[in-house]
């Protein structure tokens, strides 16, 4: 979908990206992560030409991005940022409809699309359509920001630390939402963050960037189990590395299937092992019944399955 | 806003002081040289019999002008700040909207109209000029004092309360010092307006630097007009530079 080959970018004499090679496949949830100043946001902005690369080649759907006019390529990619940037003088409806209007959709189609998106992001369309941004909470505003980015059904969704300014509860809600949207729509998402837990939770692939270079690009579990070097280990946090590993594995992978004798507590098969361990510590149980999607017991998870 | 923000306060102090020194020097030189400039103005305006204004001494006019502005300004500071402090105390809170209404209405009056309308009330001379100037400058001072006090961070007020300050101490140690830059901006505005209005007040019989201009205009003597205009401009720039210097010093604490 998007391919960087030998891309470099400098501001004056200060080089921010050096010889970057990266291919992002269709349907990937690619999380770019790094410390501030690492160049991760710049990589994102190169994709929709908010920044121009100095050398190398960036291809979108097989074509060099410079063969498009910047506006055209931007309208084919959704864009959501930390400061949200809703237009304060437009209603929520008008904000969400921004790109469809730019693309000249008819109003009937736009109205249907707005309803669809507000429902997708679990917002009450009736109450919120005619409201102005300043009447909404930060979490609600960012939901609108995401809805606006998705409005014209773009091929790619670019997100620049979109949940960075939200409180923990709103952030978790939106993380769950975006993960669900990714599963449901199969959109290609490029997501920038500096929060490793967010990256582990959302990514199908993590791209760790430092000083404008890729340090490691791999699925979350691989990053955790085989960190490329000490920098990656530091970034993952040495102290709770084990817990992080548990958080990327599901109960279903370690449970003893078919052992259906009820235990004192229970846990869903799709939950992660960190959650299961936390539950065991909190309740003092050494084993938990594992329940399937309809609540039936499908197996049992023992403490030794996690720690062993 | 951010794009048009003030330059860094530290450099602001130095620049303001330099500007004040330059303005003072030039104005002083102008004032000293003016009585000796007869031949210059005679050369500039060859058709005028009397090219130099001599009814009053220029220094006396400057002092009279400054005296009128300062006396009315001082009066306005006392009344305006007093009213603003009153309406921001619990006892006077209910008068606040009345004061705000009054300042809003009064600010639509052009200063010249205030001057003209005060003549029917008290006649000609220093009196109506003083009253008009004082009345008009109460408004920006009162308004700015209210918004300055309103702008004091609640945390600073709570800290003052928590440290055991009485309401009186909070007013003088927390509220007024923190509001001072905004109050001073109001005083600056009113002085700036008043220097001009004091000049126009020559038309109602007050003695000021407006006298050469009014007399010159009536007698077709462009030299008089120019002399008065130069001195008023100089005075206005000096006073403005002085306020800028004080404001810059006052705001050193938020140099951040």
């Amino acid at each position, binding site marked *: 979908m998007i391919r960087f080959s030998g891309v470099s970018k400098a501001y004056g004499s200060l080089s921010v990206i050096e010889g970057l090679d990266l291919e992002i496949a269709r349907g990937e949830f690619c999380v770019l992560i790094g410390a501030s100043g690492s160049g991760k946001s710049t990589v994102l902005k190169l994709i929709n030409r*908010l920044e121009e690369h100095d050398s190398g080649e960036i291809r979108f759907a097989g074509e060099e991005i410079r063969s498009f006019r910047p506006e055209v390529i*931007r*309208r084919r990619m959704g*864009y959501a*940022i930390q*400061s949200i*940037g809703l*237009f*304060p*003088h437009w*209603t929520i409806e008008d904000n969400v409809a921004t*790109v469809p209007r*730019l693309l000249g959709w008819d109003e009937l189609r736009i109205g249907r699309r707005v309803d669809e998106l507000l429902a997708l992001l679990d917002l009450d369309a009736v*109450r*919120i359509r*005619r409201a*102005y941004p300043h*009447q909404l*909470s930060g979490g*609600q505003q960012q939901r609108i*920001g995401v809805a*606006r*980015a998705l409005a014209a059904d773009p091929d790619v969704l*670019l997100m620049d630390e979109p949940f960075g300014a939200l409180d923990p509860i709103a952030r978790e809600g939106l993380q769950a939402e975006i993960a669900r949207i990714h599963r449901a729509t199969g959109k290609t998402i490029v997501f920038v963050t500096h929060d490793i837990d967010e990256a582990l939770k959302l990514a199908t692939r993590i791209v760790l960037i430092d000083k404008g270079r890729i340090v490691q690009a791999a699925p979350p579990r691989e990053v955790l189990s085989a960190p490329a070097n000490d920098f990656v280990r530091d970034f993952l946090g040495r102290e709770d590395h084990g817990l992080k590993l548990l958080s990327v594995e599901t109960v279903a992978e370690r449970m003893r299937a078919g052992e259906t004798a009820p235990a004192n507590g229970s846990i869903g098969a799709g939950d992660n092992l960190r959650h299961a361990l936390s539950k065991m510590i909190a309740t003092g149980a050494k084993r938990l019944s594992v329940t399937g999607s309809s609540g039936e017991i499908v197996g049992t998870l023992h403490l030794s399955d996690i720690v062993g | *806003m*951010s*794009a*048009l923000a003030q330059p860094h306060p530290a450099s602001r102090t130095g620049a303001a002081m330099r500007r004040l020194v330059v303005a003072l020097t030039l104005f002083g030189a102008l004032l000293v040289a003016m009585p000796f400039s007869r031949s210059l103005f005679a050369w500039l305006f060859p058709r005028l019999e009397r090219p130099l204004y001599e009814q009053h001494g220029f220094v006396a006019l400057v002092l009279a002008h400054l005296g009128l502005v300062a006396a009315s300004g001082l009066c306005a500071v006392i009344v305006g700040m007093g009213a603003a402090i009153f309406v921001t105390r619990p006892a006077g809170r*209910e*008068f606040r*909207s*009345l004061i705000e*209404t*009054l300042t809003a209405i009064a600010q*639509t*009056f*052009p200063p*010249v*109209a205030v001057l*003209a*309308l005060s*003549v*029917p009330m008290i006649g*000609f001379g220093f009196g109506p000029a003083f009253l008009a100037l004082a009345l008009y400058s109460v408004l920006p001072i009162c308004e700015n004092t209210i918004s300055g006090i309103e702008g004091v961070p609640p945390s600073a007020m709570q800290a003052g309360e928590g440290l055991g300050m009485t309401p009186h101490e909070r007013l003088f140690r927390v509220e007024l010092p923190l509001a001072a830059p905004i109050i001073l901006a109001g005083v600056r505005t009113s002085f*700036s307006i008043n220097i*001009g209005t004091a*000049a*126009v007040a020559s*038309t109602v019989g007050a003695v000021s630097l407006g006298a050469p*201009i009014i007399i010159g205009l009536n007698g077709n003597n*462009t030299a008089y*007009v*120019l002399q*008065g205009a*130069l001195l*008023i*401009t100089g005075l*206005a*720039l000096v006073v*403005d530079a002085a306020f800028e210097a004080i404001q810059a010093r006052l705001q050193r604490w938020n140099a951040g």
Partner: protein
Amino acid sequence: MRPASPVHPPLIRNRPLLALAVFLALGAFLLPVLSHAPNRLISGRPVPLLSLPATSLALMAAPALLLGAGAFLPQSRRSLQAVALAAALFISSLLFAAGAEASRLGAEASAAARSSLGSGFWVMLLAACLILADSLARAGLPAPARLLAGVAAFIPAALMIGFGHLDDLSVMKEYANRADVFRQAVVEHLVIVVGALVPTLLIGVPLGVLASRRPGLGRRTLAGLGVIQTIPSIALFGLLMAPLSALALAVPALGAAGIRGIGLAPAIIALTLYCLLPMVRNTAEGLARTPRGVVQAARGMGLTERQILWRVRVPLALPVFLSGLRVTLAQSIGLAAVAALIGAGGLGSIMFQGLFANALDLVLLGAVPIVVMVMAVDALFRFAAGSLRIGASDGATAATGAGR
């Protein structure tokens, strides 16, 4: 133990209203409502309010009593609206009584007799206007409705002037004597103001846009214009006089086109110089006000720079720009009065003529319309800005409870 006493509501419910009512009463009983002179050279004899006919007094007493009572009533929206209505009625009845008394006194005396408005009249008018404005503000009406109500309160006054009920007041006699001069002065005044507004817009808006793009240049421009603003108007007129008359002498064609040391040319140049500051500053501040994130998001969604300017920056800048225009216009209406001193004409020339000739009714005839013009411009722009305000209250409840 203290006996538990029922909580009495305080006797006085609105102290500002009471203070204003007392102020009004002092003006009514201690100061003359009119001043009557057999001719314009002799200073007048004071006419106290209580010497007016009983019908006039009764007409004024009814709303006045309601004003006083308003301070003791529970302060509801309805009672405040009633007080505002009473204030409006009082203003109308005061004007009506003054006009009727002037006619009555005029009928008894010679044609040269003059009845002018006295200090008591002005005090009562001021007090009633303040009560009107304050109770409208407290009644919690939205700003546009408040403005409309304030304007409506003066419709009877306008009708009285229109139908000649006030013709025997000396101000109106002065007006009748020089209606042509007055009308011409109003036109001249507007010519000066509009004459300065056009170049101000043509120069100020591009300069403001430029200043918002280049902050360094903007700061220097604003500093320069700030220096000009500190020069008093009369001095700036004076400073322009000598060079302009020299220019007219040197280039006779310019002189023939009206560029001279006195008159319209220096007035319009000086006013333009003054008006540039609010115009440039508010244009630049308005355009710079768009939050950075909003622009970034707009660009990221594929709005072109032109679309960002017209759909985002300009609508967001409009309220600030309009308030700059309001300040500009109000300022130049006032300054145009000073321009009469350099022969630019306008209402200021009537005002200064009155000042020089000690004819106070002429001063009023010049000054009052100036004040009314400024107030009209102010009200008009506030009304426009009020209807522009974003985030109208119709969606105020929408946020609560939406989402999760």
